[in-house]
C-alpha cells in the first residue's frame, strides 16, 4: 500500500508536467469539462467511460505520468482522459499508512479534476480567492486549487503524517500559494470567528463520510465549512443521504445544489470487502452561504 518515496525521475516528470500545464492552463480553463455539467441533466462521472472529455489527447509524457501513477498508486486511479486529472492529480503522493478511523483516502484524480474545473470554470470560485480545504489530507484538492491560481489555499488537517506528505506535494509542485494548519476542525479550529468568521471565499472538502462509530461527521464538517465561508462550499456526500444533507444545509440557512453524481471507487479497506475497491455513489455539492 505504501507509496515509494519520490525519486529523481518522478520529480523530473512532475516538473515537465507542470511546465506543460502552465502552457495549457488557460486553454484548459476555457474548454473545461464543466460544460458537460448542468443541473437539469445530472451527469454521472466516474466509472462510466462514455463521459466526453475536455478534448485533449494525452501526449506520451502525460501517458507515462498516468502509467506511473497507476502502477505506484493504491489502485484507485481511473484511467480516463481528463487532462487536469491526468496531468496534476496523479502526480500527488497519497497516504503512506492510511488511518481507517480518520477515513484517509485521496480524492481520485479524475473526480478531483472535474470538481476543480467546475468550481473554476462555472463559478470562478478558485482563481484569486482565499480558499480553505478542510480535512486536507495529502493535498489533492489544495494542490489543484493552487494550480488554478487561488490567492491562498489554507489546508486544515489533524494528522501529522498526512501533513508531511502534504508539504512534500506542495514543494514538489513548486507551489507558494498554499499554507496549512494542524488542528481538529471539529474541536479547535483556531480561526477568529468574531472578527474574521467567514473570512474564506471558498471552502473545499472531501470529508470523512462517517461509519457506525461517527455517523454524521460529514454534517459536522459542513457546519464548520459554512461558518468559514462567505460565499460557497464545495463538498462530497453520499447520494443515499441526499434528502438529509439538503435539509441540514437549509436549516443552517444555506442553499444546497447537487452539481453531479459521482461514482467513487473507495479503497476497500474502508468497507472490509473482498474486492480491492468498492463503488459508492456520491453527490458533488455546491452550498451557497
Amino acid at each position, binding site marked *: 500500500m505504501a507509496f515509494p518515496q519520490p525519486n529523481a525521475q518522478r520529480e523530473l516528470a512532475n516538473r515537465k508536467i507542470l511546465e506543460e500545464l502552465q502552457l495549457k492552463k488557460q486553454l484548459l480553463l476555457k474548454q473545461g469539462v464543466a460544460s458537460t455539467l448542468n443541473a437539469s441533466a445530472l451527469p454521472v462521472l466516474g466509472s462510466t467511460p462514455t463521459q466526453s472529455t475536455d478534448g485533449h489527447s494525452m501526449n506520451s509524457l502525460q501517458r507515462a505520468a498516468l502509467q506511473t501513477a497507476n502502477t505506484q498508486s493504491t489502485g484507485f486511479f481511473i484511467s480516463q482522459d481528463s487532462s487536469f486529472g491526468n496531468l496534476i492529480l496523479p502526480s500527488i503522493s497519497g497516504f503512506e499508512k492510511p488511518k481507517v478511523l480518520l477515513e484517509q483516502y485521496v480524492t481520485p484524480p479524475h473526480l478531483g479534476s472535474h470538481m476543480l474545473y467546475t468550481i473554476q470554470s462555472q463559478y470562478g470560485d478558485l482563481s484569486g480567492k482565499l480558499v480553505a480545504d478542510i480535512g486536507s489530507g495529502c493535498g489533492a484538492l489544495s494542490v489543484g486549487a493552487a494550480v488554478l491560481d487561488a490567492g*491562498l489555499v489554507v489546508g486544515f488537517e489533524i494528522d501529522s503524517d498526512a501533513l508531511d506528505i502534504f508539504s512534500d506535494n506542495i514543494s514538489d509542485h513548486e507551489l507558494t500559494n498554499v499554507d496549512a*494548519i494542524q*488542528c481538529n476542525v471539529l474541536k479547535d479550529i*483556531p480561526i477568529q470567528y468574531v472578527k474574521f468568521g467567514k473570512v474564506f471565499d471558498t471552502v473545499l472538502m472531501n470529508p470523512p463520510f462517517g461509519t457506525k462509530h461517527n455517523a454524521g461527521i460529514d454534517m459536522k464538517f459542513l457546519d464548520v465549512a459554512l461558518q468559514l465561508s462567505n460565499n460557497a462550499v464545495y463538498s462530497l456526500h453520499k447520494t443515499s443521504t441526499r434528502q438529509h444533507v439538503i435539509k441540514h444545509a437549509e436549516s443552517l440557512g444555506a442553499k444546497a445544489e447537487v452539481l453531479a453524481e459521482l461514482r467513487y471507487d473507495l479503497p476497500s479497506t474502508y468497507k472490509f470487502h473482498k474486492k480491492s475497491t468498492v463503488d459508492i455513489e456520491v453527490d458533488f455539492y455546491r452550498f451557497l452561504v
Partner: protein
Amino acid sequence: MKLLTHNMLTSKCMKGVSVGYPLGINASDVRVSEVDFNPDFIARMIPKLDWAVLYNAAESIGQLEDLPKDLANNYENDQEFLKKVHHVLLEVDIINGELVCPETGRKFPINNGIPNMLLNEDEV
C-alpha cells in the same frame, strides 16, 4: 506559515481563554519566497485584516521593510502599496518557531511551515 494566516489565527478554543488574539510569534527560521502578485486579491483581503496585528507581526520577525504603519487611503489603486502588502502577507513564510497564546503563554510549535494548533483533552 504566512502572515495572512497568522492574522486570522486565535487560541480562543482553549479553556479559559477569552480572545486569544493576536498570537505572539517566536520565529527561528523565516524564508521569503516569490508568490504571484494578484493586486485584486490583496485589495480584497485588506479590509478583512487587522492591520495593527499585521504590522506588529511583521515587525516582530524583522520583516517590516517599509510597510506603512497606517493603511493608505485609496489603496485599491496604489500598486506600490499593494505590492508591499502582498510581500508581507504572502511572501514571508515562518518555517520554524512557535506561536504564543497572549493569555496563557501556551506555545504552539511551527515545524516545516505548519503551526500545530492541536489541543490536549484537558485544554478544551
